[in-house]
């Protein structure tokens, strides 16, 4: 987000961000090199492929899955993922009868070490306000229609714990290896606004 990375035409939020960044740097309150490094870290090195590894491991190893559901922080750290905004984790298992979905109504709390930085829609006022009052309608807009008998649990990330949804393993994947399964897992399925599709039915 340093000056060199901005594009030529900017309006609205981009201009405000640039102005804020310049002012904070002038006052010595931020170090722009630190910002550049943070952006590079979360653009290049830390992202949802980490969470996909956790999910694929849980799908293929029932003993790991039990550990993950009992002490998510430790189990996730076993795979080498831990750090800022993921110090205290909890995993929510989706089943045929219970569907979990995660939001942060107050801001945009999100498990950075395993999913990277949140998508813009997750940080938006419409998602944050509607997920808690009309989750079925919000999921429908994401293309996920859940039967009325499925119980929906909405998790508002209001404190220090960060949540990861463990999506259901799709049918027809019994012969797939852990690495092949990793490739199926999407970021949206680990937030809870989508399910994971088997290869034959993927769009």
């Amino acid at each position, binding site marked *: 987000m340093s000056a060199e990375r901005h594009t030529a035409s900017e309006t609205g939020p981009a201009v405000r961000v640039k102005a804020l960044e310049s002012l904070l740097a002038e006052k*010595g*309150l*931020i*170090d722009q*090199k*630190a910002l*550049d*490094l*943070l952006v590079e*870290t979360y653009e290049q090195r*830390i992202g949802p492929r980490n969470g996909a590894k956790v999910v694929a491991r849980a799908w293929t190893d029932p003993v790991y899955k039990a550990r993950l559901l009992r002490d998510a922080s430790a189990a996730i750290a076993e795979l080498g993922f*831990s*750090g*800022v*905004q*993921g*110090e*205290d984790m*909890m995993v929510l298992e989706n089943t045929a009868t219970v569907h979990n979905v995660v939001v942060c*109504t*107050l801001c945009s709390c999100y498990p950075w*070490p395993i999913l990277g930085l949140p998508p813009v829609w997750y940080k938006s006022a419409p998602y944050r306000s509607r997920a*808690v*009052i*009309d*989750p*079925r309608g919000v999921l429908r807009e994401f293309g996920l229609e859940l039967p*009325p*008998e*499925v*119980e*929906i*649990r*909405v*998790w*508002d*990330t*209001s*404190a*220090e*714990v960060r949540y990861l949804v463990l999506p259901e393993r799709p049918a027809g994947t019994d012969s797939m290896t852990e690495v092949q399964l990793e490739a199926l897992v999407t970021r949206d399925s680990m937030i809870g606004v989508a399910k994971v599709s088997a290869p034959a039915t993927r769009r």
Partner: protein
Amino acid sequence: MAVLKADMVPTVVRTGASTKHADQALPARFTHGDRVVARNMNPIGHTRLPRYVRGKQGVISHDHGVFVFPDTSAHGKGPKPQHVYNVRFDAGELWGPTADQSVSLHIDLWEDYLERP
């Protein structure tokens, strides 16, 4: 005020900054299954109790352990460590009788936000 420098970034990213408090043995006021009410408190300063649950009745689902309390800590008034609970609220309780009864809301609340009904 401490400024995050580039050479600090890898360490901070890797180790994080958990506010989980050292004294996890602090007694808990509530336990799984307890009925609680989120206080109708409306502080002028910082809080992490959203308006939509204030005054609503829920059930303790999980005890996450002891954490620093942001309402005091954000204002330099000390950590006031306390238990943080995951509390379940039914959609009907939050949004009224026409709400989707298959929906429940789970939210993490500090002990100071809660009282017995």
